[in-house]
C-alpha cells in the first residue's frame, strides 16, 4: 500500500524528515518495502502552452514549436507526436535540471535552435514508462512551477501492513500511528457543509438487510443532479501518486475516501436500481452478476450481494455490478457505505478469485464508528467536484450495535510480561496517545479501546502496544532460567546417528528431496499391483500434476538425483536420504514413517591411486547393509535372498527381517528396466531401511568381555566347493564342527577358473582357534581341522585344494 507523505501531512503536522518517519514506523512494526521520492532533483520546470507546432525544416520526425509561459515565449524542438496547439505541457527551461542530473541547455538540433525541452512523465521521473509529452489540464496556470502545481516533490512509502492492523490501511490511519509515535495531534477530515434538499432520502430508496448476520450496518445517501466527468487535478494527482487510475469524478471520490479513511464505498446509478430497492441478501441459486471488471460471475448461495428488486447489483464489499454502474449519463447516485462481515467477504472473494482494495479492507475489518463519517465525507466531496444536491437525511440500517472493547489493564502485568520497569504514567500516556480512554478501576484500569483498533480487545493487546511504542530496543536482554525438569520425549529418529555415520564413512552424501512425486512413479518402478508403495495418497491441490503424490518411497527422488550426477560425468554416485514416507493404511488414514534409503551407481566409492577403480556390485550394497546392521547392533536377524520384487532384481536382492518376522531392510541390484525409466545408464544398487522396524528390533547390549589370556592359533584352508553349496552353508558347518575352540571364520579368497574342475569354485578361509584356559597344542588344532574337513567332505563333497 502506498502512502503519500504530503497527503499524510494534511492530518498530522509532522516536521521530521521522511527518513526519520520511516525509521519510526519500521520500529513500530510496519514493514516499509520501498521509499520513493517523485519530483526530487527537478528544478525550473514550468507550465506552458503550445502556441504553434510546425514540422522541423530538416528532420521529418521532429517538430518545431513555440511555447508560452504567459510572460515569455520560447522556440523548442520536440520529438513527440502527441502535441497540438493549445495544449498545456511541462516545459523544462534552459537551466532546468531533470532527474539523473540531466541539465537542459540551449541547443542546436539539426541547425535549428531550441530553448528548453517539453517533458514526458518518464523524463520527470513520475512514471517508469511514458509515451509522449505529459499533457496537463487546460486550466493549469501558465508559468506556475510544475512541481508545486503537481504537489511535488513528495515521498511515497510502500507499506506492508500485517493482517491485524486494518486500521493502517488508510492515510488517516497511518497519520494516527505517526501521531502516536511523535506525540502529535491528528486532525481527521470532516465533511464540510452537508447541504440537503427537501426531498427525503427515504422517499428515493428503500433499504433492507435480509442477511442480518453478514451485514452489521448499511448506510447510504442519494445525490441528485450530478454531472459525471473528469476529476479536478488535485483528485487525479492524489490518486495517481498512490498508483490509482482516475476514472471519473464520482468513482474517484469513493476511491479517494477509501485511501483517506479506509472505508470502502460504492456509488450506484440510482436510476438503474430496479424498484428503488436495496436488499442486502445472500445470492440465489444460479444467480449471475455482471461485474465492473467486465466478467460475469455465477454466484453460490452463501455469497452476500446487494440486490435491487430484481437482481444483484453488487458483490457486497467486493465489487459493483456493471448493471448499475455510474456512467457519464448518470444524474442521480446512491452512495453506499456499509459494514460487511469480514469472513463472508474473504470467502466470496477467494472463491471467485477477486481481490479489490475494498475486499482487502473488509476482510481485515473497517472502523465500525467511521462508516457514517466516511459516507458524509464522500457525499460532500462528490457535490464539490460533480455538483448536485444530496437528499435529506442519511439512511442507516443497523443489525448489530457496535460496542467498544473494554479491557481490564494492570500496569504491573506489562512489566511482568516484558521484563521492563515502565512507570504507570508512561504506560497510560501510550494508551491515551493511541486513542484509548483510560479510567482507574480499583487496583487496575478500565481501558476503552478506539473503534478503529479492532485488534485491541485483551490486556495482552495493550501490553503489546506499550512494548511497540516503547520500542523493543528498550526491553532488557536477560538470560532465562531454564528448568532442569526432564521431559518424557525421546527425541530424534531412532538409529539415525548410527546410520548417518556408517553412510558417511562409506562415502555416501545426504540428499534432501521434495515430498511430492508424479503419479506414474509406481509404473516407472515396475511395482506389482499389490506392492505397498502403490498404496499412496495424492494431494488435493497439488502445485503441478507431476507433484501430486506424497511419496511412499525415497527411491524415485534418489534415482533422479543419480541421473543428474551421472549426467555430469560423475563416475561414482553414492547418495542417501533419511526422510518421511507416506502410505495409505487399510483404515484410510495416511501413515507417516521414516525411511533411510541409499543408492549406489557407477563405480564403487573410495577409488584412488593405490585402490584402483572398479564397478560397484551387489556386495557393495550388501556390505553397506551389514555395516548398518552392525552399527545398530541388532540381534536375531535373518537374511533372505532371491525374494525381493521389482524395483529390485530378485536374484540379486536381500531382505533382512527381525525375530518377529518384520522387514528391517530390503536391498540389492535395481531392475535395469527401472533404471531405463530414470535414464540411469549405469548399474545401480539400493537399500531401504524401515527405521521404525529397526528401532523395534532388540539390540545387543554393549558390554565388556575379558581379554583372552591365552594366544590364538590359526589355520588357512582352501576348499574346492561344488556348485549349489553356499558360503553360508559352509560357514554354518565349520562353526558347528569347530565348537568350542573355533572363535572366528573369515573368507580371504575366492577363486573360479581353469585350474578347477568345471562348476567348482575355491573358497579360502582363515580359521582362528583359542581356548580360554590354556595354550592350544598343535595337535589339538590339527584334530579340529581334520574334523571340520572330514565333515565338509561327507556333508557337501567339499575337498581341500
Amino acid at each position, binding site marked *: 500500500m502506498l502512502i503519500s507523505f504530503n497527503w499524510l501531512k494534511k492530518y498530522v503536522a509532522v516536521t521530521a524528515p521522511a527518513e526519520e518517519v520511516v525509521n519510526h514506523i519500521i520500529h513500530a512494526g510496519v514493514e516499509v518495502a520501498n521509499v520513493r521520492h517523485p519530483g526530487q532533483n527537478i528544478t525550473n520546470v514550468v507550465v506552458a502552452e503550445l502556441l504553434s507546432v510546425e514540422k522541423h525544416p530538416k528532420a521529418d520526425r521532429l517538430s518545431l514549436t513555440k511555447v508560452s509561459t504567459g510572460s515569455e515565449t520560447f522556440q523548442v524542438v520536440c520529438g513527440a507526436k502527441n502535441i497540438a496547439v493549445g495544449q498545456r505541457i511541462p516545459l523544462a527551461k534552459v537551466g532546468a535540471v531533470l532527474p539523473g542530473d540531466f541539465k537542459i541547455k540551449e541547443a542546436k538540433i539539426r541547425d535549428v535552435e531550441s530553448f528548453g525541452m517539453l517533458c514526458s512523465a518518464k523524463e520527470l521521473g513520475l512514471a517508469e514508462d511514458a509515451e509522449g509529452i505529459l499533457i496537463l489540464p487546460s486550466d493549469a496556470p501558465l508559468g506556475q512551477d510544475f512541481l508545486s502545481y503537481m504537489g511535488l516533490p513528495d515521498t511515497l512509502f510502500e507499506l506492508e501492513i500485517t493482517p491485524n492492523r486494518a486500521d493502517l490501511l488508510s492515510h488517516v490511519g497511518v497519520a494516527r500511528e505517526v501521531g502516536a509515535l511523535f506525540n502529535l495531534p491528528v486532525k481527521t477530515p470532516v465533511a464540510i457543509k452537508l447541504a440537503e434538499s427537501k426531498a427525503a432520502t427515504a422517499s428515493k430508496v428503500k433499504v433492507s438487510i435480509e442477511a442480518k448476520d453478514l451485514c452489521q450496518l448499511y448506510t447510504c445517501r442519494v445525490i441528485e443532479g450530478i454531472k459525471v466527468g473528469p476529476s479536478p487535478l488535485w483528485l487525479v494527482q492524489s490518486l495517481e501518486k498512490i498508483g490509482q487510475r482516475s476514472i471519473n469524478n464520482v468513482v474517484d471520490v469513493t476511491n479517494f475516501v477509501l485511501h483517506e479513511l479506509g472505508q470502502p464505498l460504492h456509488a450506484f446509478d440510482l436510476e438503474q436500481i430496479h424498484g428503488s430497492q436495496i436488499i442486502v441478501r445472500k445470492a440465489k441459486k444460479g444467480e449471475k452478476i455482471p461485474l465492473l471488471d467486465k466478467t460475469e460471475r455465477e454466484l453460490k448461495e452463501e455469497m452476500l450481494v446487494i440486490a435491487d428488486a430484481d437482481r444483484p447489483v453488487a458483490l457486497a464489499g467486493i465489487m459493483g455490478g456493471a448493471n448499475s454502474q455510474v456512467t457519464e449519463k448518470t444524474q442521480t447516485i446512491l452512495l453506499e457505505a456499509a459494514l460487511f462481515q469480514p469472513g463472508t467477504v474473504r470467502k466470496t472473494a477467494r472463491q471467485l478469485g477477486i481481490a479489490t482494495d475494498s475486499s482487502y479492507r473488509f476482510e481485515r475489518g473497517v472502523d465500525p464508528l467511521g462508516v457514517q463519517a466516511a459516507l458524509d465525507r464522500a457525499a460532500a466531496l462528490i457535490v464539490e467536484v460533480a455538483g448536485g444536491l444530496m437528499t435529506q437525511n442519511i439512511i442507516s440500517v443497523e443489525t448489530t450495535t457496535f460496542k467498544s472493547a473494554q479491557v481490564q489493564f494492570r500496569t504491573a502485568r506489562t512489566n511482568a510480561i516484558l521484563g521492563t520497569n515502565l512507570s504507570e504514567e508512561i504506560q497510560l500516556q501510550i494508551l491515551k496517545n493511541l486513542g484509548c480512554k483510560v479510567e482507574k478501576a480499583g487496583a487496575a484500569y478500565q481501558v476503552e479501546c478506539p473503534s478503529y483498533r479492532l485488534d485491541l480487545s485483551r490486556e495482552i493487546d495493550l501490553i503489546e502496544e506499550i512494548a511497540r511504542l516503547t520500542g523493543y530496543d528498550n526491553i532488557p536482554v536477560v538470560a532465562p532460567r*531454564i528448568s532442569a525438569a526432564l521431559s518424557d520425549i525421546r527425541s530424534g529418529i531412532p538409529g539415525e546417528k548410527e546410520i548417518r555415520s556408517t553412510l558417511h564413512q562409506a562415502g555416501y552424501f545426504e540428499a534432501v528431496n521434495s515430498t511430492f512425486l508424479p503419479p506414474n512413479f509406481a509404473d516407472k518402478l515396475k511395482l506389482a499391483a499389490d506392492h505397498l508403495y502403490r498404496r499412496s495418497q495424492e494431494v488435493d491441490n497439488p502445485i503441478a500434476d507431476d507433484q501430486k503424490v506424497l511419496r511412499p518411497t525415497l527411491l524415485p527422488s534418489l534415482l533422479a538425483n543419480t541421473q543428474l550426477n551421472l549426467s555430469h560425468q560423475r563416475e561414482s554416485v553414492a547418495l542417501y536420504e533419511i526422510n518421511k514416507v507416506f502410505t495409505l493404511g487399510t483404515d484410510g488414514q495416511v501413515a507417516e514413517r521414516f525411511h533411510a534409503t541409499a543408492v549406489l551407481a557407477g563405480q564403487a*566409492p573410495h577409488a584412488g591411486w593405490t585402490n584402483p577403480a572398479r564397478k560397484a556390485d551387489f556386495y557393495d550394497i550388501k556390505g553397506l547393509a551389514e555395516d548398518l546392521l552392525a552399527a545398530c547392533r541388532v540381534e536375531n536377524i535373518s537374511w533372505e535372498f532371491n525374494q525381493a520384487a521389482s524395483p529390485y532384481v530378485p536374484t540379486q536382492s536381500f531382505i533382512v527381517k527381525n525375530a518377529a518376522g518384520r522387514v528391517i531392510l530390503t536391498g540389492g541390484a535395481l531392475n535395469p528396466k527401472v533404471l531405463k525409466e530414470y535414464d540411469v545408464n549405469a548399474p545401480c544398487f539400493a537399500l531401504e531401511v524401515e527405521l521404525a522396524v529397526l528401532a523395534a528390533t532388540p539390540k545387543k547390549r554393549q558390554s565388556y568381555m575379558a581379554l583372552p589370556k591365552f594366544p590364538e592359533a590359526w589355520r588357512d584352508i582352501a576348499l574346492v566347493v561344488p556348485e549349489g553349496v553356499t558360503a553360508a552353508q559352509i560357514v554354518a558347518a565349520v562353526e558347528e564342527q569347530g565348537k568350542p575352540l573355533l572363535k572366528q571364520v573369515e573368507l580371504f579368497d575366492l577363486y573360479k577358473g581353469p585350474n578347477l574342475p568345471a562348476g567348482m569354485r575355491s573358497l579360502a578361509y582363515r580359521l582362528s582357534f583359542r581356548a580360554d584356559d590354556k595354550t592350544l597344542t598343535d595337535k589339538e588344532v590339527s584334530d579340529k581341522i581334520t574334523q571340520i574337513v572330514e565333515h565338509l567332505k561327507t556333508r557337501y563333497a567339499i575337498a581341500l585344494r
Partner: protein
Amino acid sequence: MIDQLNAILKDAEGTIAQASDLKILEELRVKYLGKSGAVTEMMKGLGQVPADQKPQIGKVSNEVKNKITALLDQKVQEMEAKAEQVAPAGWDPTLPGRRLTAGGIHPLTAVQKDIADIFRGLGFDIAEGPDLETDYYNFLALNFPPDHPARDAQDTFYVKDRVLRTHTSPIQVRQMENKKPPFKFIAPGRVYRNESIDATHHHIFHQVEGFLVDEGVQFSHLKGILNVFFQKFFGNEIKTRFRPSFFPFTEPSAEVDISCIFCAGKGCRICKQSGWVEMMGCGMIDPAVLKNCKIDDERYTGFAFGMGVERIALFKYGIDDIRLFYQNDIRFLEQFQ
C-alpha cells in the same frame, strides 16, 4: 708400544673416514675395540710392560681408545643425519596420501543440527510432530480463525481432511496440551506452502520451532536466549535487533534481524545495504494458545520462536538460489563436508 698404538689410531682414522655405511662402521668398531680388537689386544699386553712405563702407556692406550670411540660415534651420527636427508630413488612425498573419501551430511541437515545442538546445550529437548496435520493443530489452536486473512500468508496443501503443516508451530500445541509446564522444546521439521518456486521460495522447506513456558518467562528472556543463540551460531560479534511484527499465536510478536555477517553491519549486496538481515519470527505465546492447551495463562507465560532453516543456510553459506538445496548435485553437497 706407543708407536704401535699411534699406528692403530692412524689406521683407524683412515678407515673410519672412508667407511661408506653403518655396517662397515660396526665392523670397524669390532676390529679396533671388540673383544679381540687391536686396541683391546694392546691393552691386554699392558701387564708385561715395565712398571715405570705403565702409567704413560696406559694413558696413551686409553686416549687412543677414546679417540677411536669418538671417531666412530661421530661418523655414525654423520651417516644417520645424512640418511635422514637423502630419500631413496623414486620417492615422492607429494603424491596424495591414502584417504577414505567420506560422504557427508546435507547443508540443510547440518544447519538444523547446529541449531538443535545449541538449544540442547541450553537445556531444550527435541520434539517432533506429523507432517499431515489437522486444521485444528495447524491453525485453529494457534489462534488462526477460519476465513481469517492471517491464513493468506500460509497457502496450504490439503490432503483429504488434513493439511500439510504450513509451519512447525502445531508441535507447540501437541506438546503442551493437557500437560503441565515447564515446557522447553526445539521442534525441527519439514513444512509445506502451496506457492510457486523461485530463487528464494520453495513449496517445501524446513523450520526449527522453539518454545519455553514456565512461571515468570518474559520478553526480556526471549531477547536473551536468541541473542545467545545467534552469537553461538554466527559468532560473538553478531548483534540482534527486534522489530514488532504480527503472528496470530504470539503477542507481543517480533521479527529478529541480525547484523550482516558479510559486511559486519556496514551494508552490502546481501543485506541490501541495510546492515541487517531478517532471520526469524518470535514472540510471547498468545494467551489464547495457552488457553487452548488448558494452561493457566495467568500463572504461566512463555515465548516461542521459529526460524527457516533454508534462510539461515542461504545466508550462512552465501548461497543465492534455494533450489540448489533440492537438486542434490554432489558437486554442491561435497562443499559442506
